[in-house]
């Protein structure tokens, strides 16, 4: 990624930074800064300095300094984002929160946990689990990603279909606005809101409005048991019909994952997983709840899953059986890695009833552009991961991929969908945003951004186009 010629950071700025975080919490050496210039997208840009804050007060001071000196500021959790939101496009300072990793309070009586933004999702799950709870957002990157990043991106995983995304599972925030003001939003009660809902406004804003230093997360009791089902259909129409029927009955599954025909073929090629010959689409379904309610829940799902295209319905109860059923789904990632280690992975959303049209449209685009496309994802809420299996080092393939992606987004919007369900906008999708948001809405978002960050120091040129 190209970076314009940058002025060196003012010496007084660096001196003040050292005063604030201490020398051992500041990097200015190019080689050391390099590692903080990328995330899990293809982007990279060299930051001029990297500061590791260890307290809210330090963040407050740092934002003040950046405002005073007009230094671009990029907040970074663990850098696992996939859309370039932590890439410091204009150099400046990267503020890493990875050392703000304390769990401040676990409060089982009020079902909440208060933690600093740099704590990983997995650490939260462990701390909550000790008291019989969990925090619903479950991105696959849970072991590495920070809750600050989860909130900034509104990241989620399979469980969102039943338990919602971070927006639904956060009670309040402590944050520093782009203007350098301290904010406390929300309350310790059941998501009580006084005034406008700033908590939800900041969640999903990708670090463009405020830096989250602390979050109060709402916990959910761990269910006593779980059942896993694998259901195979002869085509995508039958599978989508089943998804709609499953979502419309009262037992909401805690996972409703889907993989398409191209993905099934891939699993066949690269694993020993056994699937019916004419399998055209596969659903992995999980239900949770008290032990005694499980068999009724499975029956309800089975009933809803039945249609003309149903080829097989397998249910697992024991740990081994569950592992065996998931093996099919889990064989997919290594297979994809073998075929296209640097694939492009998009996460679009369409209404559930439009999934077949989306998948058919994608098949056509794949043929038209000579690109293999494999789709899987969270079918229960129409959030589909569209994978373009290309080699980004091949300029011809890359060009075809860009043209294809453009048409993928057009298709998604035609189907009344959204460009992203969980991976966010960052740099990667910024220029497509005006296609989804209307002109007035975009203008208003830009003015909200200015209210929070008048000097435009936070994640400049990301998330919203100018």
């Amino acid at each position, binding site marked *: 990624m190209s970076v314009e010629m940058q002025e060196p950071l003012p010496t007084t700025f660096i001196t003040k930074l050292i005063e604030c975080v201490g020398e051992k919490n500041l990097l200015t050496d190019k080689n050391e800064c390099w590692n903080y210039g990328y995330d899990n997208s293809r982007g990279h840009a060299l930051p001029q300095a990297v500061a590791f804050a260890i307290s809210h007060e330090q963040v407050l001071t740092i934002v003040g300094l950046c405002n005073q000196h007009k230094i671009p500021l990029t907040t970074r959790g663990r850098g696992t984002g996939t859309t370039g939101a932590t890439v410091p496009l204009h150099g400046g300072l990267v503020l890493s929160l990875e050392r703000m990793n304390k769990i401040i309070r676990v409060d089982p009586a009020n079902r909440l946990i208060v933690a600093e933004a740099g704590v990983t999702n997995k650490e939260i799950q462990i701390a909550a689990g000790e008291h019989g709870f969990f925090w619903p957002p479950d991105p696959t990157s849970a072991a590495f990603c920070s809750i600050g990043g989860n909130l900034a991106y509104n990241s989620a995983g399979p469980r969102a279909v039943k338990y*919602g995304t971070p927006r639904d599972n956060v009670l309040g925030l402590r944050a520093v606005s782009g203007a350098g003001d301290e904010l406390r939003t929300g309350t310790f009660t059941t998501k009580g809101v006084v005034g406008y809902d700033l908590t939800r406004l900041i969640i999903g804003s990708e670090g463009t409005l405020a830096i989250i230093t602390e979050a109060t997360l709402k916990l959910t009791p761990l269910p006593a048991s779980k059942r896993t089902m694998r259901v195979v259909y002869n085509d995508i129409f039958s599978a989508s019909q089943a998804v709609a029927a499953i979502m*419309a009955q009262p037992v909401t599954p805690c996972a409703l994952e889907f993989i398409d025909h191209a993905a099934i073929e891939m699993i066949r090629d690269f694993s020993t997983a056994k699937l019916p010959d004419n399998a055209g689409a596969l659903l992995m379904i999980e239900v949770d709840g008290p032990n005694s309610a499980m*068999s009724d829940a499975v029956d309800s799902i089975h009933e809803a899953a039945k249609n003309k295209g149903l080829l097989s319905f397998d249910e697992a109860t024991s740990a081994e059986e569950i592992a065996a059923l998931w093996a099919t789904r889990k064989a997919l990632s290594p297979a994809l890695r073998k075929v296209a280690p640097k694939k492009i992975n998009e996460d679009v959303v369409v209404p559930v*009833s439009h999934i077949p049209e989306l998948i058919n449209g994608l098949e056509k685009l794949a043929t038209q552009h000579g690109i293999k496309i494999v789709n899987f994802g969270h079918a229960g809420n129409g959030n589909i991961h569209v994978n373009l299996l290309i080699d980004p080092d091949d300029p011809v393939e890359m060009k075809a991929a860009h043209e294809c992606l453009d048409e993928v987004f057009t298709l998604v919007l035609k189907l*009344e969908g959204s460009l992203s369900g969980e991976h966010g906008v960052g740099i990667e999708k910024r220029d497509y945003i005006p296609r989804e948001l209307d002109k007035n809405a975009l203008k*208003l978002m830009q003015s*909200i951004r200015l209210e929070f960050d008048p000097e435009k120091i936070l994640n400049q040129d990301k998330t919203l186009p100018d």
Partner: protein
Amino acid sequence: MTQDLSKEFQEKIEDCFDNSRCINICGHDSKQFYGRTINNQYEKLSTIEHQGVIDYQPTELVITVRSGTPLAEVESVLDEKNQMFAFEPPQFNQQGTIGGMIASGLSGPARPFAGSVRDAVLGVSCLNGKGEKLVYGGQVMKNVAGYDISRLMTGSMGTLGLILDASIKVMPKPEQTITLVLEQSAEQALQTWQKLGNQALAISASCQFNEQLYIRLSGNAAAVKHAQSMIGGEPLKEDKQFWQQLRDHELDFFQGPGSLWRLSLAGATMQLNLSGDTLIDWAGAQRWIKTDESDNVIRHLCESHGGHAALFAPPDNKIEAFHPLAPGIALLHKQLKQAFDPVGILNPLRMTADY
């Protein structure tokens, strides 16, 4: 009735913007008592003839409705497909429109277990204070493109824009519902909620008053039976009516003497030392109190427990209806209001004395 008045509303607001004329947006006026009293000299802009279900796909679990549509009408449309709004919106005096439901942001007894109206609003289209039409979000369950404005509009009391229509998430109705009653004091109930709170039980509402603890269970037959065996108590007859009366403030409790305050507290907070009758809802997180205590005493006490207090039906603006905001947050609110409504013509002073 189906009628689209977007154009008329737009022209009206444009005109008011040009002439700095204030307007009072209203639906059925069923929640007029809620929040600050608005100057009755302001021109009324009623949404009630802007009606109709624009789109309803039961299998997509979402309904898109014009703001003036009566809530009762929408609920009966959902009922036909055995679906519902999971957040149990109140219908004071059996009235209320979809726009009012969203603008007031009020949810009923199911709220801590099934989410709030905010959780359910997936998209809105609205007119800002210049009369510009803005569309946010959509009909899909997940969407991270841009800021979450739909949720900002929810509960903003019409101060940020006139809601034209909204897409709202709906849920299938549970297979079975029963309510159990146990003789328990407030202190005992708070302990019971603690014990039950760390188990995944099929509880869909729970409140305590008059030495009785009420627990509603909803789910499939086995899940309800399981929870019932854990909780005990006696089944309540006419339980549907009971929860409706609680939701719509029709229980005798709400008619008693004293001002009605709503305290929002962390569920496990002990009983506060305030005079007057208390009804605890939301398994401890929402406490209704009928009291003559001063606003200072009430708010101070709530704050000391990390909560906040609203005077639910203030007779006038002498006492602020909503809990005062911290200075930094208050400033941001003002700036947000300015971004949506630069001249300040939409429901002025409805939320705070500042704008």
